[in-house]
């Protein structure tokens, strides 16, 4: 015989003012299974909890209903309470007679009491079917994976490694460094980006706990928190990293020139190359798409000149699989395609460029050796026009969101134009100037007041070429008049967008992304670095537009989450998950595609049928991945899948009880 104890809380007068708690407790005595029922002023307080524990012992109760506030408030409290009273924590149900009853029906005590009674009745019917559930544990593999070797990935890796854990950094490009390596100076301090980045690159490369896996991509991810099995494709570098000394002779002798991606195609690189001088590893890679040897079978100069015989044309992609306890996604961002804005002529006029192009023009090791020169003819521009919000804050043509960093980098660019070019003019077309951040607004104020950049509130409607000038038409909406500027160069503050292949990685790992393909945090306020997938964390602009300090802060936060996980030998799992009734499951697989966590697969079992051993497929729930949503239980027509603690039987019992 099941013996249910019902405990009705007054919550001071929060409940009892609108609900006759004594009557509810009295009514509950007649419900099937109820052995004991009482009410008390504050159930969650120490004496209230003692009352429950005492009743469990004295009344030999084996399951408990607490009628009080929302279970979202005190379910953990009462679970602990009955656990210390000797019952399994999951033999508790709560009837929410405060938020869902007394607080919303303050003026009708009679009907509020009827409703409270009904809610208790449903809870009793459910708890009669509750089963003791046991939290199990899963082992934690003490190794972390950071995907992406930009500043966010580097910071996360360093923090994890400094805490004493092994971490692998997988970077798609031949070198770590990411976007920050392309940036010339950083706002608001105007210190050189490379000067602060490269020491960190060296640190991470030399760290005994860090393995850099460059020129590599994630191929497959299986498993779950604590135990991700990740297959990494190490792309053929065509250079033996162990043998290569990085002397650079091969690069010098290579006869093939192609536009350098790192230099935004404003300068050439060779077919065998390192993306930039401070690259790590500072050893070249052959771009097989443009290499003469791979295209025609002729050449092979690099191999001939290599003093250590490190060039290996026969190298093939290599697949390695490693197990990780936690994953940090730090895959960064791409730039919006500005050619969408035909009126700006990006892609048509050589001197209409993006902010990242401008960074390279500013950089001492860039295509112009740090002199601001026009890409078209190398002339030093006198009038430079900046246009903000290109691709951002524009639902019609671009993205609805604010790209966040553009206001500041445009202010930086305008400052540098004024600083580097004598008698120059910097015009900035803007919709708003957004400068929250330490020292940011002060920087912007200096840009306008001290450096004299001319800010014009309004959008540009057209840019066209006239002689060697770019005529910029816009409107000054503050003065309400059209503006025409004869510019030598136009810089577009291009929006940050998610990586083109962002969704692919998210699908592989099994976490979610938003409509813009930025990765979705588990909670926008309280879990900003977690994903919905346990053990997977986010750092940097892959989650949304961010500047460097924010990326670094988020990376460190993600690292702490990883360390918290890796510091444990094993972790407890929530027992409210789906379970398969193997006898019933027909293996149709309808449950597989509805699971958002790829927690269900089909496995083959063997059984005896009429004296013969036959095998058949059945659904198999991975308890490490299942989060207990119950989607599979409805997809399963024969109810072979059931969700523990929210079983079909329990829900039917609640429905039935409501109408008894």
């Amino acid at each position, binding site marked *: 015989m099941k013996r249910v104890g019902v405990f009705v809380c007054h919550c001071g007068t929060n409940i009892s003012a609108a609900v006759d708690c004594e009557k509810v407790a009295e009514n509950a005595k007649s419900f099937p299974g109820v052995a004991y029922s009482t009410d008390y002023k504050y159930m969650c307080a120490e004496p209230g909890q003692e009352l429950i524990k005492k009743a469990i012992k004295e009344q030999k109760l084996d399951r408990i209903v607490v009628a009080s506030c929302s279970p979202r408030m005190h379910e953990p409290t009462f679970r602990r309470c009955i656990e210390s009273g000797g019952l399994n924590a999951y033999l508790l149900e709560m009837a929410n007679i405060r938020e869902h009853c007394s607080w919303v029906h303050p003026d009708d005590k009679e009907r509020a009491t009827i409703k409270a009674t009904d809610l208790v009745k449903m809870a009793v019917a459910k708890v009669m079917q509750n089963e003791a559930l046991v939290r199990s544990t899963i082992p934690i593999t003490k190794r972390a994976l950071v995907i992406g070797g930009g500043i966010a990935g580097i910071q996360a890796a360093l923090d994890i490694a400094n805490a004493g854990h092994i971490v692998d950094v997988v970077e798609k490009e031949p070198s770590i460094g990411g976007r920050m390596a392309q940036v010339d100076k950083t706002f608001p301090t105007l210190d050189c980006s490379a000067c602060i980045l490269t020491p960190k690159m060296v640190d991470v490369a030399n760290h005994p706990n860090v393995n850099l896996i460059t020129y590599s991509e994630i191929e497959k991810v299986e498993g779950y928190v604590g135990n991700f099995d990740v297959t990494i494709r190490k792309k053929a570098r065509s250079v033996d990293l162990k043998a290569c000394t990085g002397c650079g002779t091969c690069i010098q002798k290579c006869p093939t020139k192609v536009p350098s991606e790192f230099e935004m195609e404003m300068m050439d690189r060779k077919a065998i190359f390192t993306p930039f001088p401070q690259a790590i590893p500072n050893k070249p890679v052959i771009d097989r798409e443009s290499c003469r040897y791979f295209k025609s079978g002729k050449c092979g100069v690099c191999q001939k000149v290599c003093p250590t015989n490190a060039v290996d044309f026969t190298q093939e992609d290599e697949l390695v699989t490693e197990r990780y306890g936690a994953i940090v996604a730090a895959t960064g961002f791409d730039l919006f395609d500005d050619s969408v804005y035909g009126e700006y002529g990006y892609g048509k006029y050589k001197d209409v460029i993006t902010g990242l192009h401008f960074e390279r023009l500013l950089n001492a090791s860039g295509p112009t050796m740090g002199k601001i020169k026009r890409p078209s003819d190398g002339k030093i521009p006198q009038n430079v026009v900046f246009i903000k919000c290109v691709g951002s804050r524009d639902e019609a043509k671009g993205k609805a969101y604010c790209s966040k960093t553009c206001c500041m980098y445009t202010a930086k660019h305008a400052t540098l134009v004024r600083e580097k070019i004598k008698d120059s003019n910097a015009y900035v077309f803007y919709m708003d100037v957004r400068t929250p951040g330490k020292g940011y607004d002060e920087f912007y104020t200096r840009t306008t007041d001290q450096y004299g950049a001319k800010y014009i509130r309004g959008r540009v409607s057209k840019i066209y070429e006239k002689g060697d000038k770019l005529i910029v038409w816009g409107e000054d909406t503050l003065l309400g008049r059209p503006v025409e500027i004869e510019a030598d160069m136009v810089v577009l503050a291009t929006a940050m967008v998610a990586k083109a292949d962002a969704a692919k990685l998210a699908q592989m790992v099994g976490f979610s992304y938003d409509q813009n393909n930025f990765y979705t945090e588990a909670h926008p306020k309280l879990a900003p670095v977690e994903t919905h997938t346990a053990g997977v964390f986010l750092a940097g602009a892959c989650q949304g537009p961010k500047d460097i300090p924010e990326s670094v802060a988020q990376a460190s936060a993600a690292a702490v989450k990883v360390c918290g996980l890796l510091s444990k030998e094993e972790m407890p799992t929530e027992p409210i998950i789906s379970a398969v009734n193997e006898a019933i499951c*027909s293996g*149709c697989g309808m449950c597989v*595609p509805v699971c958002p966590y790829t927690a269900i697969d089909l496995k083959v079992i063997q059984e005896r049928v009429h004296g013969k051993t036959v095998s058949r497929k059945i659904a198999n729930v991975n308890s490490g991945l299942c989060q207990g949503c119950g989607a599979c239980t409805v997809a399963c027509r*024969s109810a072979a899948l059931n969700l523990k603690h929210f079983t079909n*039987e329990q829900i*039917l019992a609640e429905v039935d009880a409501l109408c008894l």
Partner: protein
Amino acid sequence: MSEMTKKMQEIAREILVKGEAEVVIGWEKGTFWYLSPPAFIDKPEDVQRLVWDDFCHNNLSKYLVDLKNHEGKAAVFVKGCDSRAFNRLLQDKQIAREKVVLIGIPCPGLLDQDKAKELGKNSDLPKAQKCLDCQYPNPLVYDYYLGDKEALNEVAATKEAADYSDVAAIEAMSPDERYDFWTKQYDRCIRCYACRNVCPACSCRECVFDQTRVGWIGKANNSSENQFFALTRAMHVAGRCIECGECERACPMDIPIMLLNKKLVKDINELFGEYDAGIDIEGKLPLGHFDKNDPEEFM
């Protein structure tokens, strides 16, 4: 003996003699002239039992489920609807393709059995409703094909829009009229579950209606329980019904079950885009995936 019957017997004999399959599932003449029940032929000398006529209604693919644990291969004749049923079961992973030899037959549409029984032999019989509604008279999958291949392509090219006028007629009623209509229908239900047993979309090892312990449904045969049964079954075959009409044919109480199934087929097509079950076995099922841009009515 019709040309097709002859071809069927020949190929069945060949398959059995060569040992391509251990059993051939086809149709034979039954107790009455308007019945052509399934025949299971495992000896070459028995092939003359096989027939092809206007009453070969039974969807033979479902029988393959019973042979799931049988070691040898089975050969089975498939009309258009039978082939969709085969795909349906394949998609539900209830049969192994490599264990089945499919012999495709082009189907001109079969005659209404009930009318045959009522009007007698030599009367002018109408086609069965499911055949009037049929969009796929030719088999979609087969290893052997007994008809004219060119005709096959011709017919495939002229797929007409489905006719939902019978569903629309019910939709046009008032809610109370609809409720009374269906109550009258399902008050007749004796819950024999013949509709389920014959259905190629019903392949659960244990049907929810048999799970007395869980208590999905009571034993009582009353309007309420019968309606629970009808609605639940309709939802369970939603997006999976291949419109073979076997449920309705098997129903001893003449309940127009296909009117429920067709309603769901119609709504699925309207809401989630064109979809016919049992055509593409790789495709996602309407209730097995979603589109972020699905119609929004629940704001």
